[in-house]
Each structure stands twice: as structure tokens, then as C-alpha cells.
């Protein structure tokens, strides 16, 4: 079970793990970018019901959502070079990170595609009609009217997607990538303080997830400010009530003070 527990190790491991934070964030950022591009490409044929491509999109979604991410990682790492060799591409020297980002990116793409489709379809049909009726091209109607509203709808789903991705990247160590989880394993083996390493690791993931969640929540509220009616009214109402409640108390106090 390793060496006896010493809390001090948790703190000394934190900076060591943080050295590899960059790699983890690189995987997250690279995969997100790939994923959003892939997501659009996969979502479009489904939204516009383009015959053959639509079926291909369906297959893509089934594969990436229906198989474990770990297996997808292995399939890409071991399979892609073999597949591309006959076509004249030599991937034997490509960095591991390339495969990792590609696998996570395409995996994220499946979820991004569903997010995009659902958000765009959630925008009221009347919005597009009003845009068309005033003479906008379909590109303008999409970019100026549908997209901003779809974005606001998508943010909560996007938030989940990014956090899931962040956590999933911890599996990249299985291919020998020195990201945070890989580093934690090495530290654990070296010092035999496994429990402390994983506490430190969990703390870091927790802080990043929490920050991401807050940032994206703020973004959502900003994007949805046009819908703030009930919420804001409710809040100011409560504030006012609290205020007047305090004011009443203050009055009572002042009254007492005055009399005494």
C-alpha cells in the first residue's frame, strides 16, 4: 500500500503536478478546437437532412458515443498509422499528442454535434422567419439571429462537455503522455506516497472544473441577459424586501435609542 500517509506530501506534490498542467490544457484546448470543427461538420448534414452524409454522421455519432474513450484512444494510436501507411502517409514518427488530440477531438465532436443541433433547433422558428421576411440572406439570418440565441442555449451543455473532456484527458497517460495523471503515477511510484499524489491531483482537477464552471456560468448569464426578466425582477424584489426589513429594524432601533 506504499508509505504511511503524510499530509505534507500533498503540498509538495502540487507544484510538481502543476508543471504538467500545460500538457493537460493543451490536450483540452486542441481537442475542443478539433471537436467544435468536427461537431459542425457532423451536425450540418443532420440539420439540413442531406441524404448520404446524414447517414455517415449517424455512424460517426454511434461510434464515438457508443464505445469507451480508452478504446478509441488505442484504436487511433495503433490503428491510424497502419491505415494510412498504404496511402503513403508515414505516421510512425508523429508525436503521441497528435493521436491523443485527434482521438479526444473527434470524440468531443460527437457530443458537440448533438449540442449544436439541439441548440439551433431550440431557437424559435419565428425568429428565422422574421429575419427572412426583412430580407436577410440565410447566412445573415443564421449568424445574426439564430447563432447568438443558440449560443446562449448551448452554454450549459458546453460547460458539461468541457469538464467531461478535462476529466477524460486523464486517460492519456495510458499512451505514455506526461500530462497530470501520468505525472502523478510517476510521482507515486517514485515516493510510494500514492494517496497523497492522488489527493493533490484530485484537488487540481477540482479547482479547474470549478473555475471553468463559474466562468461559463457567467458567460451564460451574459448571453441570456435578454431573458433576465423574471430572474432580475425576483432578485431586486427580494433585495428590496430585505432592505426594507432592515430599514424597519433600523427604525425600531432608532426609535428605542431615541426614547432611551
Amino acid at each position: 500500500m506504499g508509505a504511511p500517509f503524510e499530509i505534507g506530501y500533498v503540498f509538495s506534490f502540487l507544484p510538481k503536478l502543476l508543471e504538467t498542467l500545460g500538457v493537460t490544457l493543451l490536450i483540452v484546448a486542441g481537442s475542443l478546437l478539433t471537436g467544435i470543427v468536427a461537431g459542425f461538420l457532423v451536425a450540418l448534414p443532420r440539420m439540413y437532412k442531406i441524404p448520404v452524409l446524414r447517414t455517415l454522421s449517424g455512424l460517426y455519432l454511434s461510434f464515438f458515443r457508443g464505445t469507451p474513450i480508452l478504446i478509441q484512444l488505442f484504436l487511433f494510436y495503433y490503428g491510424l498509422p497502419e491505415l494510412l501507411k498504404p496511402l503513403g502517409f508515414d505516421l510512425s514518427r508523429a508525436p503521441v499528442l497528435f493521436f491523443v488530440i485527434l482521438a479526444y477531438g473527434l470524440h468531443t465532436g460527437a457530443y458537440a454535434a448533438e449540442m449544436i443541433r439541439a441548440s439551433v433547433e431550440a431557437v424559435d422558428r419565428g425568429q428565422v422567419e422574421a429575419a427572412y421576411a426583412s430580407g436577410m440572406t440565410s447566412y445573415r439570418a443564421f449568424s445574426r439571429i439564430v447563432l447568438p440565441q443558440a449560443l446562449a442555449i448551448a452554454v450549459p451543455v458546453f460547460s458539461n462537455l468541457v469538464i467531461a473532456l478535462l476529466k477524460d484527458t486523464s486517460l492519456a497517460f495510458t499512451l505514455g503522455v506526461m500530462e497530470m495523471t501520468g505525472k502523478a503515477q510517476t510521482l507515486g511510484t517514485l515516493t510510494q506516497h500514492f494517496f497523497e499524489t492522488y489527493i493533490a491531483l484530485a484537488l487540481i482537477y477540482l479547482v479547474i472544473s470549478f473555475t471553468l464552471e463559474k466562468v461559463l456560468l457567467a458567460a451564460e448569464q451574459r448571453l441570456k441577459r435578454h431573458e433576465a426578466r423574471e430572474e432580475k425582477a425576483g432578485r431586486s424584489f427580494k433585495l428590496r424586501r430585505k432592505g426594507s426589513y432592515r430599514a424597519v429594524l433600523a427604525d425600531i432601533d432608532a426609535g428605542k435609542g431615541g426614547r432611551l
Partner: protein
Amino acid sequence: MIELKRISKSFGRHRVLQDISLSVKTGEVVVILGPSGSGKTTLLRCVNYLEKPASGEIAIGDFKMDCSQAKRGDILRLRRKTAMVFQQYNLFRHKTALENVMEALLVVKKMPAAEARSRSVALLEKVGLGGKLDEYPSRLSGGQQQRVGIARALALEPEVILFDEPTSALDPELVGEVLEVIRDIAREGITMIVVTHEMGFARDVANRVVFMDGGVVVEEGTPDDVFQHPQEERTKQFLRRITPEANWVI
């Protein structure tokens, strides 16, 4: 001058519009009446191609288009000569009242921002919303939203404004303020095609009344003709049903 010739439209096997022809002179206010499902909305939506007619011709001013072979450019030109006021207002939800009116001026007409802004402010003041420029639609009453919708349509200076039951989604006490605005702009000589169930309003705003049923124009004429001396049995039935008090008078 707007001219619809032999417009036909089907949904599946259901022929909703059957060879409808209608012409509207510049400055004229045409009110379309008819029972539910008679094709009024569909006809209006064919005029700006939100619904694709199967066949027929649409001419507005010097622009003419054959519906069966309309190209993207034709549709865009058609839409830029018309504006629509929707039953459900359909204001852009993420834009303020002012931005709603400005949007197409900036994006479609490529008007400089300052000019678009001053024109939009003036129009919103005209419909009585000078104090609500920066409100989002979610904070406006239905009547206020519809008045923004009307300002948005006016801003484009279209050759015709299409109104599809502009007051039927409103609470009864808000209907008046919207009808008042429409009356005002009708007096200014703006060409309009209005679908409505407000008979009193139809009577005093219309230059011509068109009665539709089953996808065809059954009868048309001045408000007096159609309301006082309807010729067709279907028109009489409809009027009797919709204005029961007429029975008492007769």
C-alpha cells in the same frame, strides 16, 4: 402596385390555395377575411415567399417573378420589397426594441449606424415607444411588442406591409393600442394587406375587403359591399357567424 396571379399552393394532397389572383393598388388597404383554415395566412406567406407557391406569378412595382422557377436572388428581392407583421410578433429576442428596428437597416439596407438609429428612434416614438428603446422584448407587453414589430416593418419602407392577425395573440385590453397604430399608418397611404378577425377595424380601415374560403376568393368589394350587401351565400354565413348582432338588426 402588387399583383398576384393564379397562386396555387398545396400541403401534401391538400390544396390550400387554388389559383388565387389579387391586385392591390399603391396606398390601398386590403383586408382579407375568411374562416379558419381558408388559406389566409398561407396566401400572405406566399407573397414574401415564407411559403413557396407551387405556381403563379407575383409582381410588385417593376419587379416580376414566376413562382415555379424563382431563384434565390428573386426571393431576396421580393422580400426586400415587402415587410411582415406576425401574429406572434417574432421580435428578435436577443435584441432591444431599438436594435430590432435597426437590424435590417444595418444588415439589409447597409445604412450607416447613425442614420439607422435616428430613423428607428423616430419610428419607435411614432408608435408610442420612445421610452422603451433599450428594453428587451421579454420585458414588453404583447401590445408593446407588436408596436415594435410594426415599427420594424415600417423602417424598411417596403412597398407593402403584410399583417397576419396582428392582434389575435393579444389580451383584449391591448388590442386597441395596436389597432390605433395600424389605423394611423393606413391613413398615411402605406400599402397594406391585413388578415384580421376584428370586424369593426376591418370596416373602417379597409379600402377593399376580400373574403376567402376553401383556398379561393369568394367575394371582394368595398367594405360596404361586402358587409352590407354580400352576394355569396358563404360570405353571408360567415358574417352572420362572426357578427351575431347583425341578426338582431335585420
